[in-house]
């Protein structure tokens, strides 16, 4: 029997990018694989749910779950894996703050179902058939997980010990986390395992940023060819670097694209999108409502831009629908 610590990876409502980031460890993966025993990894290995159920509670040292929680199956697995693990780590933006899937919280479940199964241009469904959670046919019963009304971050479902942020997290963060786990030198429970300071600190273009930015216009990335040496915000692009936790070495900016906020806020900020709004509006020029509105029109989708990776963690948690179209059953 192996005495190496057991770890596992699981994916919920995710794109698979986080799984790839593990692979991106490249040579370091050998170090990881050599030091731990992976007992559950649906993406890459053939362990089944019943294998996990058979494990003793808390026998998995660390479970890294990525993806947001959207279905009853994901909820169930989250609860199961929580029972079986000592340390549960929310891996990646979706598990950390809801991720891009949580932008679905702008729509009610009914709106989504209706669009997908009836109104979508490529859908042919004259009978308006909808998927059911239970279906009996010919004596045989099938089940599908229920699509919940609200997309949730992992900690809105189970108790989470640590967070590794990013969409996806840079391999370096994973490596550092594994090292910390193995050495037993973990920070206080609830810590996000990335520096608690904004991206600007790591950004090579910080020195080129003027001290007095006052924008009369915001531009979207496709509208300009950004100067590769200068601060992107100064060029009018909506760069969320100042409001976003660092630890990524400003990789997007180095790729000449503005930061979109995937690491989430620093620990001192409660509602990431609201703080981003405050910061961005503070850089806008204008003293009259008309001027200001014109400038801010350059941000066409505030919810999508400010809560791109974290609508689940918005204090409102999503869009409120007019009565008649509730977020509940």
């Amino acid at each position, binding site marked *: 029997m192996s005495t190496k610590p057991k770890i596992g990876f699981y994916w919920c409502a995710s794109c698979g990018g986080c799984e790839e980031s593990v692979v991106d460890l490249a040579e370091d993966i050998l170090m990881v694989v050599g030091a731990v025993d992976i007992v559950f990894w649906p993406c890459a290995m053939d362990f089944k749910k019943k294998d996990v159920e058979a494990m003793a509670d808390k026998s998995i040292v660390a479970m890294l779950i990525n993806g947001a929680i959207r279905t009853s199956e994901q909820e169930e697995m989250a609860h199961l894996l929580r029972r079986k693990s000592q340390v549960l780590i929310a891996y990646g933006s979706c598990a950390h703050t809801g991720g891009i899937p949580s932008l679905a919280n702008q729509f009610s479940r009914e709106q989504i179902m209706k669009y997908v199964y009836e109104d979508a241009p490529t859908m042919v469904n004259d009978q308006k058939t909808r998927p059911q959670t239970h279906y009996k046919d010919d004596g045989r019963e099938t089940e599908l997980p229920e699509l919940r009304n609200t997309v949730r971050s992992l900690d809105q479902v189970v108790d989470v010990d640590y967070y590794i942020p990013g969409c996806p997290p840079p391999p370096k963060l994973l490596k550092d986390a594994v090292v910390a786990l193995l050495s037993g030198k973990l920070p206080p429970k609830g810590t996000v395992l990335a520096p*608690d*300071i*904004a*991206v*600007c*600190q790591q950004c090579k273009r*910080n020195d080129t*940023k*003027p*001290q*007095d*930015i*006052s924008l009369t216009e915001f531009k979207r990335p496709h509208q300009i060819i950004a100067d590769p040496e200068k601060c992107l915000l100064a060029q009018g692009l909506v760069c*969320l*670097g*100042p*409001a976003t*936790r*660092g630890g990524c070495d400003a990789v997007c900016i180095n790729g000449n694209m503005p930061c979109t906020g995937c690491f989430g*806020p*620093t*620990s*001192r*900020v*409660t509602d990431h999108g609201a*703080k*981003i709004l*405050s*910061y961005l509006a*503070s*850089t806008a020029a204008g003293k009259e409502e008309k001027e200001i509105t014109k400038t801010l029109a350059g941000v066409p989708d505030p919810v999508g831009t400010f809560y791109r990776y974290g609508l689940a963690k918005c204090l409102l948690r999503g869009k409120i629908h007019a009565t008649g179209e509730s977020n509940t059953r």
Partner: protein
Amino acid sequence: MSKRIGVYICHCGTNIAGMVDVKAVAEYAATLPGVVLGRDYKYMCSDPGQEWIKEDIKDQKLDRVVVAACSPLLHERTFRTAAARGGLNQYYVQMVNIREHDAWVHTDKASATEKAKDLIRAAVYRVALHKPLEKKEVPIKPGVLIVGAGIAGIHAALTLANAGKKVYLVEREPTIGGHMAKFDKTFPTLDCAACILTPKMTSVKNHPNITMWTYSDVTKVDGFVGNYKVTVRRNPRYVIENLCVGCSECINACVYKEGKFPDEFNLGLGKRKPVYLPFPQATPLVALIDPDTCIQLKTGKCKKTCIEACGDRKAIDFEQEAEIKEIEVGTIILATGFKIFDSKRIPYYGYGTYPGVYTALEVERLVNASGPTSGELVMRNGQKPKSVAIVHCVGSRDENTNKYCSRVCCMYSLKLAHLVKERTGAEVYNFYIDMRTPGKGFEEFYSKVAGEGVHMIRGKVADIYPESPGNGSARLVVQAEDTLLNMIRKVPVDMVVLGVGLEAQADANDVRRLFNISCSNDGWFLERHPKLAPVNTFTDGIFIAGCCQGPKDIPDTVAQAGAAAAEALALIDAGSIELEPNTAYIVDTECSGCKTCIPMCPYTAISRNDEKKIAVINEALCKGCGTCVAACPSGAIKQNLFEDEEIFEEINGVLAHV
């Protein structure tokens, strides 16, 4: 860390207790987390009330205090001091406003009591997070800047200078004296304005503690109470001040043989040359040259007979440039005065259309012995009037122009009535709405003037028009409804004097921005409290005096000037002032150097440390507005006394269901 919070509910007599069930609230407060006692008392701000807090802190080992009473703007300091005397840091106190914001404005006892509970709960949640802050002490520099050298500025300057304080007196006109220097006689005693003013003007000039800068503007004000850095621009007279003796030889010798340009001091009624003295008693008695009309300054081609006449004194300097002076003072007094209402805004009074219509200030110059007509009341047409109408309330007490009463016009209109009658023997008609003569000797003055045969007509003038248009006759008809006789009167007169109201100076709004004070709705500088702090502003260290605060006569102006000087003296002699520690601070390790905060601060308190690549706040400059705190995208800036956590708890508190 469990807290020991004491909550005190004040009855304020029946002010609060009459609407809020104070006992129920005190009982409720005692059930809140961390609260060890909830008390109610008739007058918490009284000595026994404060003693109670002091004793409870010791006996009950309180580490936080919440006082629910009147507005913190009134008694926050009182209760903080009480707590401090009990040995508790004064910032461990939070006040709740259940009087001005609750008992006094609601009519349903149940709702008012619920509201009190909500607000107190919020304060209890908040105060648990308060930190032990210390007031910062800031020294007060002893110098004083006084802006405006009319009678208010002059009086304040002399008071302070006589007390041994250094005064900078800055005046934008080329002479001190303000409007008072233009008057002939002053009401009600008919003192000669120049006779009582010029000795004071001379004292100012000669006083060793006063630096008098005329023809100068304040261009920049930085700093805060006790430490103001002010930039003053001394505009070029093209005459060297300390060389000119005011002999007027240059004026006599000017290539212009006669005055040709409107004389500002005489409101355009007289003419002056490009080189001139504002008026014979101007202080300083130094000539100045108008660059818009002087041939030398405009074209460079003049015989410069003025320089020749000046001779060995060599006081004229066409190359003179503006001089920038920077001074450091601890306090500032604004005494920038007023302007008169522009009568052209009431076109049917005919000012500017009919030559026989004058403003009261113009008539002051006409009856003044050193005025354009040497004190003879001679009109533009060269004649003396045989009948004069004086119109009260021009621009004042009027929905269409200024709603307020300008306070001095009835008295000066009576004074002018007396002077006109005395000089010309003309029939004088005063058209008034009400006769406002409240001051000492004012009613008696009214009786005297009425007794001299001046006609008092109680009716607001509705129209002024030529008696026979096109006939060449210059007589005007003044039409008003006489409300005592109940008939429309149409009085033909030779001359109309408009009793113009007072208004804030045209650039009052720009000036007040420069000094960071406010204006009230009417445009006058805003006092901190209309009764209890009429010369203070909301900005510490800056005081206002005289008409810039609101229309008033000379006795009241002088009283306010003395009051402002006393306030400045109080600060200077105290030597230092304590500033509220509600400043913002940056946690170095949390700052990413994103520079978002730097342009947020209007006091330039935030700067960039290029070495550490972070932002740094100069605590001495921070005024505690918190704008940078809200802007900081990563929460690295916090505000003492208004931390995010404290406010979040307050929000939780007001909304938490009972």
